[in-house]
């Protein structure tokens, strides 16, 4: 491979570090030694030594090098033989020696990767390769222009044995003399010339072309002129259903599309990907027609390029690379819970180089590309190449993670995993739940339109041992996902795992007030429309609608909007800044309008007044924000409970069930009873590593609970008794997973108060209310905080309310203002 003597170290180190992060994120990490070398090079003063060292480290990982000469021509040099697994993807590097300093996209092509449908019969056996460049985050799509850098190419083989693959590369720039790009179409303003529709509607939105076919022969076409030759129509898109698409073209000599000039391509339903359809043009091209579907359906297209195929333009050059493909073997799963019952579990499978299987960036639902683990149960299988693997097995945080070694040979093998639990809360009457997960949006897709299906979400809640998953439909995917709302647990539920669809007010309606989680809805959408464009803008009005049908209501990602401080009121901050007396900016979408909402009661389904908001979401934002506002409203006597959520995959895509609520329920699990017990606060919140059960007050005024924590690497945890937000007693507890009975002496309250237990930051009970002299709980400093917070919230949120709702908003805030003022006046110091 060509060697580069010296480039500026600053960009080389940044770009190479970024490459390392990209390799990590797609499941093909550099080794720890290579990462350490990279870190040490950051302290090396010599640019030359850094340049040489990086090449010495990364050249062996390359499938080829591409030298782009100053005149734009490319010279490709193959590497040593490359090992692939049958039908498995692998990431390799391409070394780019960029003498021309071009900042365009490096493209790869191969005659061995051409499509099989409509291919020449005698060439089918030669089409055994799949390949694509990885240009996604955190990489830039284009070359940097630096003389030395490395890019990622992904390869897969369908044929076992030793073969030669022709890899051809191009780094042309559109419009330049060396360009292979004939025309680029982009959709930031309009359809950029695509028209002449048949059987479809076309809408341009968010820089994409949305095609909606409504007949049996949908197509769209565009005029384009170019000299003949082999061409490739490339586009990035996502069809919503299976089938095939077609490309037709016409020329100056034969100016009509006909069946003699067409290519067929396979649709990849539900996936965002690049399509590349190669076709030969005899004569001068005059137009292209795209038939994206064969019947009614939808197809989103982000961009379209028309290019000359490899070999049709001087900038494409290649070399033969030896590929050795080994057979893959079936690996079956046999998975049981600790009591021997079948269950779903999480498996993270890595080879001895740390590479993740199945290859993440090519995964489709139910496996998520942004996770390293997959979820499988008994009877299911995957295929792995021969080799030795380390498998991390788990079944949620109540299980003890097992590391297994898996040896895969030529014969099918079974991976046996029996869950080992350190606790089984369901057997103790506490049923876990995550009240905020999504089947679409955020990490599921860059541009959420549909998301995944209930059966996919069920697999994940079962694998993480979340007994109740509240899958919330929200703005960007609303019109597709709303079909799954049924007002009861979804039919895919498999007891004791319940999946139910409800609503998060996010991206529409009153979202700027702070998002609301609406559980146990009977009607998903307010009267006046069938989507999300007619909802109230005042959160209180959303709650009025939800409460009239008996919903259980709460905030979402509560700390959002509470992290920045705009001031402070008098008060003494507690440990962990709980409570604290900084006034948040209320500039986000968490528990913001909440400070007003907790002072209100609204009509329930039977006309009886009930609290407007039942719970505050916790466990997925900074505790000093979410627990702080909770403490302050509790200190004003508002009986709002805490629930636990993840907001998967928005706050994190690692896994769902990172934030949980454990609800006490005798007998069998029933969704309606579970959510009503949540509303009453018969529960605690946790990240799953700590548990605080049966928190009770004895006749002598003492408090008792059954607690357990399992935190490998930590000897013990502090269990604190909290009175009105401040710890009044602490007991050390071993974090060894053993259940322990704890008792706290009577805190001897002089005034009414609330009492709770917590293990910071991983668990918190709901409050126990202690009544002294029939007085309500009212802490002056917290009333002062709430009053200031209310004013700041009004300042930020008033402008978000529709004019028609402004009078109601003023009344609602005024009610809260008077409530807090009264508490402030009545409270003792």
């Amino acid at each position, binding site marked *: 491979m060509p060697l580069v003597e010296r480039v500026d170290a600053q960009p080389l180190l940044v770009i190479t570090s970024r490459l390392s992060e990209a390799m990590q994120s797609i499941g093909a990490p550099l080794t720890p030694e290579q990462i350490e070398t990279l870190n040490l090079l950051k302290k090396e003063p010599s640019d030359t030594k850094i340049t040489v060292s990086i090449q010495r480290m990364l050249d062996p990982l390359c499938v080829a090098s591409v030298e782009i000469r100053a005149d734009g021509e490319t010279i490709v040099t193959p590497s040593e033989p490359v090992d692939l697994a049958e039908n498995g993807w692998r990431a390799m590097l391409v070394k780019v020696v960029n003498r021309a300093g071009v900042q365009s996209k490096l493209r790869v092509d191969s005659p061995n990767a051409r499509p099989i449908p409509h291919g020449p019969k005698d060439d089918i056996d030669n089409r055994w390769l799949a390949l694509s460049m990885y240009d996604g985050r*955190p990489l830039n799509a284009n070359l*940097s222009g630096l003389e030395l850098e490395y890019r990622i190419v992904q390869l897969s083989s369908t044929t076992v044995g030793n073969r030669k693959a022709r890899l051809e590369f191009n780094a042309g720039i559109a419009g330049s003399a060396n360009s292979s790009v004939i025309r680029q179409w982009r959709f930031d*303003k309009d359809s950029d010339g695509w028209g002449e529709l048949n059987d479809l509607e076309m809408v341009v939105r968010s820089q994409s072309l949305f095609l909606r076919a409504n007949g049996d022969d949908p197509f769209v076409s565009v005029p384009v002129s170019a000299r003949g030759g082999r061409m490739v129509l490339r586009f990035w898109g996502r069809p919503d259903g299976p089938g095939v698409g077609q490309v037709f073209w016409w020329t100056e000599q034969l100016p009509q599309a006909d069946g003699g000039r067409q290519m067929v391509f396979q649709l990849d339903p539900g996936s965002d990907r690049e399509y590349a359809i190669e076709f030969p043009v005899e004569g001068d091209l005059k137009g292209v027609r795209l038939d994206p579907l064969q019947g009614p359906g939808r197809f989103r297209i982000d961009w379209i390029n028309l290019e000359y195929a490899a070999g049709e333009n001087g900038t494409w050059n290649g070399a033969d690379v030896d590929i050795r493909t080994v057979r893959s073997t079936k690996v079956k799963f046999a998975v049981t819970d600790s009591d021997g019952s079948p269950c779903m579990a999480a498996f993270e499978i890595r080879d001895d180089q740390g590479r993740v299987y199945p290859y993440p960036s090519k995964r489709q639902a139910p496996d998520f590309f*942004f996770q390293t683990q997959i979820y499988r149960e008994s009877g299911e299988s995957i295929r792995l190449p021969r080799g030795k693997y380390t498998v991390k097995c788990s079944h949620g945080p109540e299980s003890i993670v097992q590391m297994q070694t898996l040896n895969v040979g030529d014969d099918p093998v079974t991976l046996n995993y029996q869950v080992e639990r350190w606790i089984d809360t369901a057997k103790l009457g506490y049923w876990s739940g995550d009240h905020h997960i999504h089947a679409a949006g955020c990490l599921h897709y860059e541009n959420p339109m549909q998301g995944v299906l209930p059966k996919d979400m069920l697999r994940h809640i079962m694998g993480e041992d979340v007994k109740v998953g509240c899958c919330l439909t929200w703005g960007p995917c609303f019109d597709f996902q709303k079909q799954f709302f049924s007002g009861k647990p979804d039919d895919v539920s498999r007891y004791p795992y319940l999946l139910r669809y409800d609503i998060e007010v996010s991206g529409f309606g009153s979202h700027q007030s702070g998002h609301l989680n609406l559980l146990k809805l009977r009607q998903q959408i307010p009267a006046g429309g069938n989507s999300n464009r007619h909802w109230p803008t005042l959160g209180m009005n959303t709650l009025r609608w939800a409460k009239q049908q008996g919903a259980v209501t709460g905030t979402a990602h509560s700390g959002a909007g509470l992290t920045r401080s*705009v001031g402070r*009121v008098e008060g003494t901050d507690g440990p962990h800044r709980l409570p604290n007396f900084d006034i948040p900016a209320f500039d986000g979408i968490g528990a913001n309008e909440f400070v007003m909402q907790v002072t209100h009661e609204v009509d329930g389904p039977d006309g009886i007044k009930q609290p407007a908001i039942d719970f505050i979401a916790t466990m997925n934002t*900074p505790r000093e924000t979410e627990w702080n506002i909770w403490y302050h409203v509790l200190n004003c006597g508002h009986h709002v409970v805490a629930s636990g959520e993840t907001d998967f995959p928005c706050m994190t895509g690692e896994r769902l069930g990172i934030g949980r609520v454990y609800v006490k329920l005798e007998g069998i699990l029933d969704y309606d009873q579970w959510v009503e017990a949540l509303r009453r606060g018969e529960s605690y919140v946790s990240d799953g590593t700590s548990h605080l059960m049966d928190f009770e007050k004895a006749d002598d005024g003492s408090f008792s609970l059954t607690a357990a924590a399992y935190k490998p690497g930590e000897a013990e945890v502090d269990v604190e008794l909290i009175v009105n937000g401040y710890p009044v007693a602490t007991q050390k507890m071993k974090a060894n997973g053993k259940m322990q009975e704890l008792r706290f002496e009577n805190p001897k309250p002089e005034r009414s108060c609330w009492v709770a237990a917590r293990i910071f930051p991983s668990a918190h009970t709901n409050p126990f209310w202690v009544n002294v002299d029939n007085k309500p709980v009212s802490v002056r400093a917290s009333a002062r905080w709430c009053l*200031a917070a209310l004013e*700041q919230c009004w*300042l930020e949120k008033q402008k978000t309310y529709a004019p028609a709702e402004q009078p109601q908003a003023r009344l609602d805030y005024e009610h809260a203002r008077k409530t807090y003022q009264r508490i402030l006046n009545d409270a003792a110091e």
Partner: protein
Amino acid sequence: MMQPNSRESRITRKFRGASRPWKTIKLFSLPIALLSVTVASGCKPTQTSPLTPSAEVSNVERAKPQVLITVSISPESRVKAVAEDIAMELHQGDWKDFLIEIENAAGITAPLVVESEQFLQSDDDTSRDRWLQFELQPHGALTGMRNEVRTLRLKSRDSGIRTTILNFNAGQGTQDLGFRSDVLVTFKVQEK
């Protein structure tokens, strides 16, 4: 969604010629005397490197600013940034203005913050990896409007090819997942 090309910006067109969306925060109805509130922040005119750059305004390149980055804030308040496919060029020691287009689907009013390990930390910073000076104008709370535009002024200490990773957030924990809140930008910096 991939967006591989440069484009004429609809947001830039919308705001071209318009005054910048300034906002002033006042706790007008807060019972200050009673509560002893200290107003700690509000809208500041710029977010800058910890240097003293404003005296060098005369060196600003006068060419019409290009859109460098589009920042999208999702309904879930996740901040995503995308670099436009434009020629990234600077002149050593000279300020250059770029535009940042903001699409605020969440309607939040938190400040937009830009961070980078390549930002210079002092006037005499000689670290190889810190070479970039910046100003974000105006700096401070977003308006909550669906679209707005801010100016990012950049100046390079060095010449040659230089790379930076710019990270955008609108408060703690708002960075989008999967590296989507930051952009890798490589500049060709002409020697002075």
